[in-house]
């Protein structure tokens, strides 16, 4: 067990070190998320005022889109550096490799979200911090579900043709329950009278999806990543 945890940490640490030196994914993803918010703002703002619920939708779309970008880059880097093979022949369990990659991506996405969420709150006058704990719960549970599926598919698509377009094609239909739960939960908190029980119900739903997705991903990662 300790060996497993150490292996997970080694993989995560490697990814974070590479990221800390280049800051490539962090910078590009943050600005991509910003661009997303900007583009969607034009669709959902009338006379300087955002439509009701627009902030919740825009926030989660920005997270999903920029998450896809981060996932793609995280594995593209392995492919370009031809380090994926090294990772695969390293004497660690496949589940540890998967969890390590997942953890690395989650930390990067968390950094992106700490910048994007206040930005959306500011630009759309959305009270995202009135129920900070519930909001953090939604963000954490939602991001884990999204990244759990994303890490599996981004990893397995590394060697596939037309992977850039296939990743979103696979990822969005599968993770749409997570995005729906995130948007509805956030919208419940943004109502004039915040609906806390509703937000809690959506968090519970997200945790359920997380468990299903991580189980399925851990189960399929090994046969999919073995040649």
């Amino acid at each position, binding site marked *: 067990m300790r060996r497993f945890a150490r292996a997970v940490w080694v993989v995560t640490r490697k990814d974070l070190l590479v990221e800390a030196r280049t800051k490539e994914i962090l910078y590009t993803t943050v600005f991509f998320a910003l661009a997303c918010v900007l583009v969607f703002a034009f669709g959902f703002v009338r006379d300087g005022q955002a439509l009701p619920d627009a902030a919740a939708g825009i926030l989660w779309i920005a997270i999903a889109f920029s998450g896809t970008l981060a996932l793609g880059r995280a594995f593209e880097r392995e492919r370009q550096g031809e380090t994926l093979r090294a990772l695969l022949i390293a004497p660690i369990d496949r589940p540890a490799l998967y969890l390590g990659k997942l953890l690395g991506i989650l930390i990067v996405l968390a950094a992106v979200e700490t910048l994007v969420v206040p930005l959306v709150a500011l630009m759309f006058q959305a009270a995202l911090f009135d129920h900070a704990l519930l909001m953090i719960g939604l963000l954490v549970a939602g991001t884990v579900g999204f990244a759990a599926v994303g890490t599996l598919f981004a990893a397995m698509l590394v060697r596939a043709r037309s992977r850039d377009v296939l990743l979103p094609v696979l990822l969005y239909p599968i993770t*749409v329950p997570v995005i729906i739960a995130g948007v509805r939960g956030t919208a419940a908190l943004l109502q004039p009278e915040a609906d806390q029980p509703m937000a809690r119900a959506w968090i519970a739903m997200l945790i359920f999806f997380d468990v299903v997705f991580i189980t399925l991903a851990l189960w*399929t990662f090994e046969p999919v990543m073995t040649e």
Partner: protein
Amino acid sequence: MVKKLFAPLTIIAAMMFAYAPFMILDAPYESTMGLIQKIFYFHVASAMTMFLSAFVAGIASAAFLFGRKPAADRYAVAAAELTVVLGGIVLVTGPLWARKAWGVWWQWDARLTSTLVMWLIFNAYLLLRKYGGPGSDRLAAAVALFGMANVPFVYWSVNVWRTVHPRTTVIPTLQAGMRGPFWFAVASFVLLYTLLLSVRAALEHRRAELDELYLAVEGD
């Protein structure tokens, strides 16, 4: 065995599909929707067959992925294609019915959305196989597992959330006169499905054999 049965079963299936409209015509009219409700017999029958097909695709993919049986993959791809076809029927007959019953073509409720999502996942499966290049069959198998995991959600969504779509309790509480035509339609769809699945898997089998022969020739 399968080869011998294929022709007679195909004739039976054709006859069943020819006879089904007459049974549906004879079934009693539903009190509020009248004639419109008749689409139910094909809509629900194709939806049930779609669920069956998604399970076949998922289980065959699991057998391929974990048991490393190439034959299972041929059934998986056949079942995935049929899931898309049957889902297409469901997603066309549904809005046709909805337009008359609810006044709108589409409603973003849990049942409709989850069905669309499941259909998209199996489309993604086919896209991945077609454009993913070598090795994409194993990757697609993982996608099929996620697609299969969706089936319970689609099935129970009407009972968990309040939706405009009728609940699953409709089927066991059907009027006496509707039951016969409905289960006849389901049997027709399942029989047709089995035939299509076997012939599609057989085609994949031939393709695999041909590939092996090519490889053997090139190896010489």
